[in-house]
């Protein structure tokens, strides 16, 4: 019942089932019968000293599950992983979130976790770029940096003792995201990689895959590194800024060309289709789907139709069978 409700006709249903079967047979499922529901027995060797992890409990000397999911075993650790896992934050994750509250000296963000994350004013670069102590005036001007419902990209700095998440946005690549789309997908579809910021130069758009399941697709923004900036450039910019004191925001409002907007929509739809099919979201896969839609000459809204859905599943099945054959 979940996901995009698509009305597939008979032929499409057949093709989709066949493609999904192929994908299933290709994936190696070592413990395919290890799914458990609540209070099911977990088969363990009682002679070994096993560690009971998340989702397990002891009852009458037996180990039972407290969650519905799949049993995972790592050496001596036995735990139950839910199928639609919630986002589990780790230090250093790149996160995309939305501001829901401006509180004294911090912003509260919603990040698809059980609690809201906190971005302290001190973990944020000030607009003039000088490193200094935050004063009361800075606190009063917090709203000029981020307001409610702004979309922000940040990094996990650490946890508080009570489980609350702390973020930091000290580098130039973090901060407010403008002119784009925010998509919500399941968090387990985004694996932790080295790079989460991707620049698709042939389309001129930025793709940020947040580890919490929030994906940002937007117009490309040139990231200026503070250190490398020339002093002369800086003075030029300051002059320009002083001329436009009144309408700061309006000057920076550049017009986004329609081709870029179409590319943004296309990429966003590609990610939607992939997340409904349950495939891992990586740049390569997204690029393939976008190229596929362009080569098939589909309109952007047709990408969310049943036919494209089935085609993507088939292509992915082909791709995986090719890669396993090569091995």
């Amino acid at each position, binding site marked *: *019942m*979940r*996901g995009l409700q698509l009305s597939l006709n008979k032929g499409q249903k057949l093709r989709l089932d066949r493609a*999904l079967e192929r*994908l*299933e047979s290709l994936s190696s499922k070592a413990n395919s019968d290890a*799914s458990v*529901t*609540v*209070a*099911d027995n977990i088969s363990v060797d009682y002679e070994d000293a096993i560690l009971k992890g998340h*989702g397990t*409990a002891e*009852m009458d000397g037996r180990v*039972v599950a*407290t*969650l*519905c*999911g799949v049993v995972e075993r790592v050496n001596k650790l036995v735990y139950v992983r*839910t*199928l*639609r*896992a*919630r986002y589990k934050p780790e230090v250093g994750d790149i996160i995309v979130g939305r501001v829901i509250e401006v509180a004294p000296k911090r912003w509260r963000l919603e990040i698809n976790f*059980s*609690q*809201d994350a906190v971005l302290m004013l001190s973990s944020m670069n000030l607009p003039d770029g000088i490193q200094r102590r935050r004063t009361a005036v800075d606190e009063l001007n917090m709203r000029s940096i981020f307001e409610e419902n702004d979309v922000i990209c940040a990094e996990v700095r650490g946890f508080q003792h*009570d*489980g*609350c998440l702390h973020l930091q946005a000290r580098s130039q690549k973090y901060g407010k995201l403008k002119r784009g789309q925010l998509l919500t997908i399941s968090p387990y579809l985004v694996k932790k990689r080295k790079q989460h910021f991707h620049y698709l130069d042939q389309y001129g758009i930025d793709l940020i895959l947040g580890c919490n399941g929030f994906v940002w697709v937007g117009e490309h923004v040139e990231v200026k590194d503070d250190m490398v900036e020339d002093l002369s450039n800086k003075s030029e910019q300051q002059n320009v800024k002083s001329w436009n004191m009144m309408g700061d925001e309006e000057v920076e409002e550049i017009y986004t060309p329609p081709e870029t907007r179409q590319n943004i929509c296309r990429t966003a739809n590609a990610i939607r289709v992939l997340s409904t*099919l*349950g*495939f891992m979201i990586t740049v390569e896969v997204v690029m393939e789907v976008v190229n596929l839609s362009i080569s098939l000459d589909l309109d952007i809204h047709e990408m969310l139709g049943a036919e494209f859905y089935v085609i993507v599943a088939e292509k992915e099945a082909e791709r995986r069978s090719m890669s396993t054959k090569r091995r």
Partner: protein
Amino acid sequence: MAGKSSATPTTYSPSLSGQKKKRPSFLTDSDWVRPDGRGPHQCRPAFLRTGAVNSASGSAYAEFGNTKVIVSVFGPRESKKAMMYSDTGRLNCNVSYTTFATPIRGQAPETKDLSSMLHKALEGAIILKSFPKTTVDVFALVLESGGSDLPVITTCASLALADAGIMLYDMVASVSVSCIGKNLLIDPVSEEESYQDGSLMITCMPSRNEVTQMTVTGEWSTPKIHEAMQLCLDACSKLGKIMRSCLKEAASGPQD
């Protein structure tokens, strides 16, 4: 439902079927024939599905004969009220009826009672320590009330909690028995509930063999109560098996 008639409706309604009917006298001694043709110790066939509501963390839909309930679970999410640190999580339950749920439009039973009873039934089964400082919200919506509402709501809510991935000690199954004269009828329909002398509802965790809630109303003799409890517990364990198979199907059905 605990058979209490609601207050007299303020708007005029031609039939006063909200109050307890005067039972035809021939029924006190003879056996009651159930309107849907079931045996007295036979439950209605259950239809259970998870994943009914896309936007919720977990959800379930249950249909027991004419009683149709949809439950959505949100959480664990930030609790605004508990700014103080609490090392256990909070559970918040809310039951509501649609206006077209009852035969007379808008005449729903006390939903505040039902909400607090649902809370008591579920809090024994949820491992609250697993989500400190956050809240789990359970919203139950009764689409059609065909008798034995609260047991169906509790069963459906426990499925929705399992679907949402919240840690539970065990699934919670709930069944009610009503007593008419000398007959014990399990899983009563609204007509039977309007005639009942007493009702007994048990909410239990089948695999652990523990009862989280027991509600008794009306007049009961001791042997009758024992018999009714035994009936309920047997029915609950069967219902528990059905719930499990529903969850397993949901997990293995949509691949990927």
